């Protein structure tokens, strides 16, 4: 059995262990956990070698992909990774995308900026329902085109109504219609987010800059968070997402617009891949009426703070105590 593949498979546990936590595994008293981990990896790799067949001179790309996929399978929750581990997984994801889909991606792991808490305001007087925010969001975040997944919804509202569930979220006619107003919803990035408490695997949490994110590789797709969200802010991937190759946004973030596997939750991330570089979210950038205001809540000179200070603002379902960081305001 001088098979190349088995040799490689045997090497895998070494590679996995060679992380910064290697000190715990190198000790003579290896814990039950690390023992099982090594066992399971070895067994899985051996079975994989059996499944794929041990043909001498099998094509190297396929075995490389297999190796990457195994290493991906045993990675940690994003919050427990060191920067080195983050760089490794991002590198693997980029190589996998190149191998499997021939895509050149740049996946980032930009950490939250200091003294920043993101806030959002939506002008219900100005929005005219053109929905250019929605198309910009779909393109930026590589949303599934087949099921027409959208993070943002715009509702056409009767005057005097403030609850979007009473509005029309499926209009398609010339806008704006006289005597109607338009109200957009998306993930409100609650400071006291109920969705993060519902998650059984801690795959969703609030980052220090206030963005509620999902670790797509730790999500098990139970959809408890979707049930817990009072704002219908979360979306579920029923199938493998389909994005035309020439429309893929290549600048991605691990917690943002990278490819979501089938059966995972996803949601608006305030375009984490843009905002952590100082850019505006795609919806704000695309809005033709200037109804969307985005900025740093911890900066007294920011636009969002001006809105909170000088405008009549309200938040949706404020009585729930979820503390959304998304305000509606009127001129």
């Amino acid at each position, binding site marked *: 059995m001088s098979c190349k593949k088995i040799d490689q498979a045997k090497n895998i546990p070494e590679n996995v262990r060679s992380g910064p936590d290697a000190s715990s595994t190198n000790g003579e008293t290896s814990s039950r956990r690390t023992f099982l981990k090594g066992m399971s990896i070895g067994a899985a790799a051996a079975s994989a070698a059996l499944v794929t067949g041990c043909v001498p001179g099998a094509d190297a790309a396929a075995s490389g992909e297999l190796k990457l996929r195994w290493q991906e399978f045993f990675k940690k929750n994003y919050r427990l990774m060191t920067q080195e581990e983050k760089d490794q997984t991002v590198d693997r994801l980029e190589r996998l995308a190149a191998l499997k889909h021939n895509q050149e991606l740049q996946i980032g792991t930009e950490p939250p900026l200091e003294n920043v808490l993101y806030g959002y305001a939506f002008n219900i007087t100005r929005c005219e329902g*053109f*929905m250019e925010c929605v198309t910009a969001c779909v393109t930026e975040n590589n949303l599934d085109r087949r*099921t027409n997944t959208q993070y943002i919804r715009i509702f056409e509202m009767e005057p005097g109504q403030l609850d979007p569930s009473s509005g029309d979220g499926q209009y398609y006619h010339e806008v704006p219609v006289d005597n109607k107003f338009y109200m957009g919803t998306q993930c409100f990035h609650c400071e006291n987010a109920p969705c993060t408490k519902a998650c059984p695997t801690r795959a969703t949490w609030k980052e220090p800059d206030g963005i509620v994110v999902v670790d797509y590789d730790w999500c098990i797709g139970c959809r408890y968070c979707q049930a817990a969200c009072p704002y219908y802010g979360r979306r579920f991937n029923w199938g493998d997402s389909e994005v035309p190759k020439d429309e893929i946004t290549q600048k991605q973030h691990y917690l943002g617009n990278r490819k979501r596997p089938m059966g995972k939750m996803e949601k608006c991330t305030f375009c984490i891949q843009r905002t952590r570089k*100082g850019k505006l979210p795609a919806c*704000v950038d695309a809005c033709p009426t200037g109804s969307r205001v985005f900025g740093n809540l911890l900066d*007294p000179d920011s636009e969002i703070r001006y809105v909170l200070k000088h405008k009549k603002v309200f938040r949706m379902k404020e009585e729930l105590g979820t503390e959304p960081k998304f305000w509606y305001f009127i001129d």
Partner: protein
Amino acid sequence: MKKSIYHITRGMLCGLILLLVSILLLDPRPGTASETSLLETIKKVDEPFDDRSVTQVRPIVQPTVLAKEEYQGGSFRVLARKQDIERYKCSSCHTAKEVRGKSAFELTHGNVVLNHGQEGSALSCIDCHHPEELDFLEDKKGRKIDFDHSYQLCGQCHFRQKRDWLGGAHGKRVSYWAGDRVVFNCTTCHDPHAPKFAKRFPATYSAPLN
């Protein structure tokens, strides 16, 4: 008799102390944030954020000019306008030289459809354009106004919008929330001759939620 009263009061005291301790231990208020706490914590921060600390901000590509107004005590820039005006500079045509009848239509701005102001008080060219110095606009006090600084003119009537624009509740920033503030000019979004957005079909539609 006296002894029993003493016992009762002692018992009551003990009970009271127990009650107080239990209240302190089992605080009925939830440990989560109260309704105003987010706003309170936000308002406590009064030190300006160092916009330069976000190092990945790149300079704006479009031409900009330094605004002649202040934003929350600081200066800011607006997108320039002149390079987008097709036939600027106006004075290159508006001279004393004769105009041939043949090219008259082309030269008389026949393409401009004016739809600004309510019926009955609709604006005409001369309400905004300088009657003599055609490279400039003119406000109601007769001051020359540069095309790049049209907010000085628009703000005469639309003073509420201008106030909001200065603060950041009207209009929008260019590309970045961090870095030096660069905002859209009035005319970046609004056609000054017909400032209201035309009705059109939305860019997409929404399927029902799953």
